């Protein structure tokens, strides 16, 4: 286990530790990284990351950013990252309701490129991912 995973956000370091394998939500699809991966740089979309280390796998919700993969390290730089046990479910529920409402209001003939539309959609996605990740913690 000499793959080191570091997840940093602009405000803090969210995770640092040795892992066996990490699965990341790449913009072109999910991908797993093991030790000895070639140097690789890839944007990430909003989604969940799976961290396989010692014992049970851990999960975290990421918002967009990118991953810098090296031979023995993976550095994930994202706007926000919350480990499953850190997620505030009530807050995520409220965020989802808010985003759905905003989308419903916009729906009539708003082009997909509209920035409000995209913001609301991204907010909805973040909320859904958080809820999904939070649900993993129950197991």
């Amino acid at each position: 286990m000499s793959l080191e995973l570091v997840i940093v956000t602009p405000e803090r370091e969210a995770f640092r530790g040795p892992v066996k394998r990490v699965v990341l939500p790449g913009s072109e699809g999910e991908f797993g990284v093991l030790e000895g991966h070639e140097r690789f740089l890839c944007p990430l979309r909003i989604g969940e990351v799976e961290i396989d280390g010692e014992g049970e796998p851990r999960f975290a919700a990421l918002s967009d950013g990118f991953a810098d993969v090296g031979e023995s390290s993976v550095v994930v730089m994202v706007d926000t990252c919350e480990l499953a046990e850190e997620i505030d479910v009530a807050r995520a529920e409220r965020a989802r309701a808010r985003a759905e409402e905003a989308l419903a209001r916009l729906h009539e003939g708003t082009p997909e490129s509209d920035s409000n539309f995209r913001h609301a959609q991204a907010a909805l996605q973040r909320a859904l991912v958080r809820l999904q990740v939070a649900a993993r913690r129950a197991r």
Partner: protein
Amino acid sequence: MPSLKDIRRRIDSVHKTQQITRAMRMVAAAKLRRAQDAILSARPYAERMRATLGEVAASQLEAGHELLEEREQVRARELVVIASDRGLCGGFNHNLVKRAEVEIAKCEADGIGFGLTLVGRKAVEHLRRRHPEQVTHTLTGISQVAYGHAVQLADHVAGRFVAGEVDEVLVIFSEFVSALTQTPRVERLLPARPAGREEAGEKPPYEIEPSPEKLLEILVPKAVQVELLRALLESQAGEQAARMTAMESATRNTEELIDRLTLQYNRARQAAITKELVEIVSGAEAL
């Protein structure tokens, strides 16, 4: 000559002021510690970001980004002025606004147009009155700097830059040198300059997916946000440090004042007693 009661009252009032300044000093000290922690925890991301962007920009010379492009002629400049919401922090805001005025004067002297993005109530109060037409955006009421604030500012200035309304964006903020010194600093935010390519040669080049252009599109705006976040965090720490110093010297001044007033009070008391004694003695003599 003030009466004993007057002096007493004065001492009480100065004492109350002292309690306030002392409390403010302590609050500022606690907030300073938190602000410094925030700077430290923001550092890993900023450093990684700078390193990655530098490397990508160095190895992918053909891939450009609009926020990296130098313009031949600067016809308009956006100045992002970061001050604080509250006063009572010594010369902190004054120094910063003065520095901003210097930059404004430079623009005016060169015949360059300028826009102002103002952060903090003190910046708004001072600069809006003098240059009401130029203010393009204000951000006030920040109790704790968050990444979202940096994103909001970055969106605004990048929008103006891309739209061609300005050709250069400068940030004017207080650099947190130490708890005792904060110096106003001017940095160019846009067009962004990816730092250093020194590491590029050592490591094998990156495999980039889906494409370098796509990646830069994500990377560059984030790098701009990170720079703004750093300026906001430094300014936040600087404000608390300045307030701490200001309140410390205010507390010291009240101590001096209380000493002087107490001396005056005791003298007046002594004089009153002497006067009374004289009156009693001369009264007894008259009998």
